[in-house]
């Protein structure tokens, strides 16, 4: 076996350790160990790289490593716990930039079409990651306004930018020796990264960082193709794929879609028309779980449907799981919920819900705006905001539980059917409402299972 072969086999081991480390990172009990294993894998990979025959001169390398270690180490140690996210953004940016540079450097030695295409990709993605991460850092650390930056014609500018990048890319592929195209691609990529991130609000930056993180993985992967290195491809694509999934999960936890996050800024300009009645937004059990999982203050509002579904035991189970997840859980009990006085009390007592978690309507309403998620379980009339808002409604004036003031509302019912009073419920159409259709017990058991 040649040395080269042996080294490459060690890469396989290193890749295996990355995978294992990433797996462990996904569970609280093992996360720290996972991180350590992944670090070991990295160390192994670096050592193998250093042993490579093509490496003849270690001075530059050592210089780079020392400088990098000092900066990275200091940054990691000195940074306050609260500013971790922006630090991650910066680290990510430097990773992206490194990929850009690797691609750039590779261009001098690799210039077959395939290599140039991958080099182009690694520069493009690396550049976007570089400047995008920087903007994200500035926004997060409030060195720059967190507000979306939007100007008219932004879309047109962006489109032109994309076109220009493509043209330069094609030209570069055709004539890899013309460095002007290369510089153009680099400049345009960096610019594009800036343009892509400025219209996004500061609160959405974590998602953006996660996305850019996924990009930096892809950049490494592209660089791997360019310099023909397996470990780069494996590790890069692992990061790319898992970062993408993670971004998606984070979006779900915020009850947004990725598209919505990325283009919300643009939306702010365009939708100035008056809001119509709104539309029904169904949600899946899985997505509902992600939101609940991230909530710290949950109010459960049961109604007749909980009784019909006999869901009280499942509700109790969900309550316990939420509490285990460090959320505060209360029940908002409307005096006429159900079909007899005290209907909810009977059922919740049966499920052994402590009395002091049952909050009367008058008490829960003022707290409603600090609630992350209000889960309406088979209640309808008693949470109908028409009683507050629509003077013509037959229930106008009846006090209701104002779940619509919570950040997010889940309504668990089987259909769009109306309740006892037989009237439409505008709650179902509100922006922050998600309908979880199905028998309440099934839905809640589903949520309980997701918590497993």
């Amino acid at each position, binding site marked *: 076996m040649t040395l080269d072969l042996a080294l490459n086999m060690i890469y396989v081991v290193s890749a295996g350790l990355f995978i294992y480390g990433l797996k462990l990172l996904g569970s609280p009990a093992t996360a720290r160990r996972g991180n350590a294993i992944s670090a070991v894998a990295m160390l192994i990979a670096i050592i193998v790289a250093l042993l490579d025959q093509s490496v003849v001169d270690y001075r530059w390398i050592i210089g780079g490593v020392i400088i990098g270690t000092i900066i990275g180490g200091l940054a990691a140690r000195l940074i306050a716990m609260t500013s971790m996210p922006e630090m991650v953004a910066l680290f990510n940016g430097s990773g992206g930039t490194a990929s850009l540079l690797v691609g750039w450097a590779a261009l001098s030695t690799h210039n077959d079409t395939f290599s140039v295409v991958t080099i182009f990709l690694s520069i493009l993605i690396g550049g976007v990651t570089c400047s995008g991460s920087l903007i994200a850092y500035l926004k997060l650390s409030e060195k720059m306004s967190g507000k979306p930056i939007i100007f008219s014609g932004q879309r047109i500018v962006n489109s032109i930018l994309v076109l220009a990048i493509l043209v330069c890319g094609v030209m570069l592929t055709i004539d890899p020796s013309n460095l002007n195209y290369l510089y153009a691609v680099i400049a345009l990529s960096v610019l594009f990264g800036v343009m892509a991130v400025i219209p996004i609000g500061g609160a959405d930056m974590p998602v953006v960082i996660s996305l850019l993180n996924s990009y930096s993985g892809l950049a490494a992967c592209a660089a791997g193709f360019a310099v023909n290195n397996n470990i780069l491809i494996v590790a890069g694509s692992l990061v790319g794929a898992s970062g993408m999934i993670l971004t998606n999960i984070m979006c779900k936890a915020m009850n947004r879609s990725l598209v919505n996050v990325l283009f919300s800024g643009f939306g702010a300009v365009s939708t100035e028309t008056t809001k119509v009645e709104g539309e029904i937004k169904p949600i899946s059990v899985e997505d509902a779980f992600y939101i609940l999982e991230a909530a710290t203050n949950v109010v459960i509002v049961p109604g*007749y449907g909980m*009784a*019909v579904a*006999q869901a009280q035991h499942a509700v109790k189970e969900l309550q316990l799981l939420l509490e285990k997840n460090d959320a505060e859980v209360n029940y908002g009990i409307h*005096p*006429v919920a*159900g*079909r*007899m*006085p*005290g*209907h909810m009390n*009977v*059922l919740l*007592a*049966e499920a052994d819900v402590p009395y002091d978690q049952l909050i009367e309507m008058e008490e829960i309403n003022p707290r409603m705006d600090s609630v992350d998620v209000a889960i309406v379980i088979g209640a309808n*009339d008693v949470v109908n905001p028409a009683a507050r808002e629509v003077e013509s409604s*037959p*229930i106008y*004036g*009846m006090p209701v539980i104002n779940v619509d003031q919570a950040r997010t509302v889940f309504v668990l019912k089987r259909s769009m059917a109306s309740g006892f*009073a037989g009237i439409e419920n505008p709650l179902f159409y509100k922006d922050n409402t998600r309908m979880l259709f199905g028998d309440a017990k099934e839905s809640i058991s589903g949520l309980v299972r997701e918590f497993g």
Partner: protein
Amino acid sequence: MQITIPKETHSGEDRVPIVPAVAKKLVHMGAKLMVESGMGLGCGYSDEDYSRVGAEITGDRQAALASADIVLRIRKPDITEVNQLKSGCIHISYLDPFNESELIAAFKQHGVTAISMEMIPRITRSQKMDALSSQASLAGYVAVLLAALRLPSIFPMMMTPAGTLKPAKVFIIGAGVAGLQAIATAKRLGAKVTAFDTRPVVAEQVHSLGAKFLEIDLGETGQTADGYAKELTPEQVQMQREAQKKFIADSDVVITTAQVFGRKPPVLVTKDMVEGMQHGSVIVDMAAETGGNVEGSVPNETVIVNGVNIIGQANLPNEVCRDASLMYSNNLFSLVEDNWDTEQKHFNLDLNDDVLTGCVITHKGEIVNTTIKNLKG
């Protein structure tokens, strides 16, 4: 405005129309509260409890009534007391307007505005004033306790070294407000509960409490807009009896709550059904006072027929008079508060209001309630 609260005179009535906590709210609203001395004693509330929250205590019942702008009470008044009221006074209490035509006539004659608590319409907004519901709910709870104590065996199942005790079988006829609460209470105590009602929507409500519903096909039945049951045809009553017979014979406890609003309740458990039951079984006839669902039940008495106990005790909410008073007080208060003019501090009688249209019987010397007017015609 002066609100007078006379002491209840009906013997065995421990409930009070206004508890001190609610009296306080009335005073706070700007009313002058005149409380007859000893009014709260049935529930253990002393005169001081009321004077402390700002009510005036009086020993002179007659004067207090004569000067009242509003009278709040539970039971319908004696006709003689109606005569003492001043014209324009608003009198709020149970009135039994379907049967008490003389009383209504007295109100009319004296220009008193009589509001009947039975007639609060069952619309969503008026649920907080609905005394029939609030009291029926407590009655359902009490009925089960009475039955449980009467029954020579226990409600829950118990597997013990001294043998397994089977759970009691409880059958509840009429699953309205009282019936549902009875179901819930019996279930809580561990009984096997089955219920029946003529209104088909009720089956789901019974299931929602974890009890069984006895399916009987009676053909067309239904309910009024207010959610009350329609009266059955004689054939339907017969069908119902037949179908229930075997089931009743197998039950340890039967609780009947079947009412038809404004009419005599149907007889659902006949003598032979009673005799078919096991020795020691218990029947609670919650409709005993108004005529009875059970053949042979006697109001306010427990009779034993063939070893079967038939409890006809009336005024069940009185057994939990403190809570019953609290709820009734709240019902009254909600009614007053909803019509209170906070500027002028007086009761604003707007006969176009949905709720008042339903429950005001006489006003300014006229019978204004259409149902009652038609009854008379």
